[in-house]
């Protein structure tokens, strides 16, 4: 059981990642995976391709911290988190989160938590090519709300 956390320009193979999770351990009866793709429409305009910038010295540390924060709340077997950077075309894969757990609830919650934190705390920025020129994507209030829900759950 060793987590895989990567920031890369290359595409990834979901099948191979799923197999790597599946062969983690017989004690883990649940696998949940999520992948994010480049859409052709965002915030009211059509999108061509996307450029993903990041802060190389900080990115991997930030992802490691997010996975550690998730591990502090739930029990997982193996976690795989891959985020791509550079130029990506419509329909291409941007991010993959997959993990194994003994039970499905931990697995679902863990993936959700990792994505909510990644969207609000990991140093990535998207620039879209649109018919009106290149535009930096604005942060979404929904993402911040989704991230804050986890704090509220802690208070209960």
């Amino acid at each position, binding site marked *: 059981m060793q987590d895989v956390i990567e920031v890369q320009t290359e595409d990834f193979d979901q099948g191979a990642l799923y197999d790597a999770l599946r062969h983690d351990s017989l004690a883990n009866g649940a696998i949940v995976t999520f992948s*994010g793709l480049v859409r052709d429409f965002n915030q009211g305009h059509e999108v061509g391709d996307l450029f*993903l*910038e*990041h*802060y190389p*010295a*900080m990115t991997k*540390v*930030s992802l490691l911290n997010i996975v550690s924060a998730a591990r502090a709340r739930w029990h997982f077997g193996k976690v795989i988190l891959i*985020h791509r950077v550079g130029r990506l075309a419509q329909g291409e894969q*941007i*991010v993959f989160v997959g993990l194994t757990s003994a039970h499905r609830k931990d697995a679902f919650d863990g993936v959700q938590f990792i*994505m909510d934190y*990644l*969207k*609000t*705390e*990991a*140093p*990535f*920025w*998207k620039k879209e090519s649109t018919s009106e020129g290149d535009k*930096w*994507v*604005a*942060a*979404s209030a929904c*993402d911040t709300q989704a991230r804050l829900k986890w704090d509220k759950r802690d208070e209960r």
Partner: protein
Amino acid sequence: MIQVLFFGQLKDQVNTPSVKVDEVATRVAELKKILGSMHPHWRPYLSNHSTLVAVNQTIGDDETPLSDGDEVAFFPPVTGG
């Protein structure tokens, strides 16, 4: 010396990916003032409440202490995933 980096839209707004600051700043707020006096047109971007800061690759704020050799990054809210 403090190495200052800019990312995302902020990098375009200040029109540079990085700058070195030789003056001693003890906190992030002071570094912002120094940068603002070096480049007055950067002030609104640096004082924008949504601008985030990381000191040595860890998220901080205006009160985060600084020492010689630190790497300080300013950037807009993140939009990965």
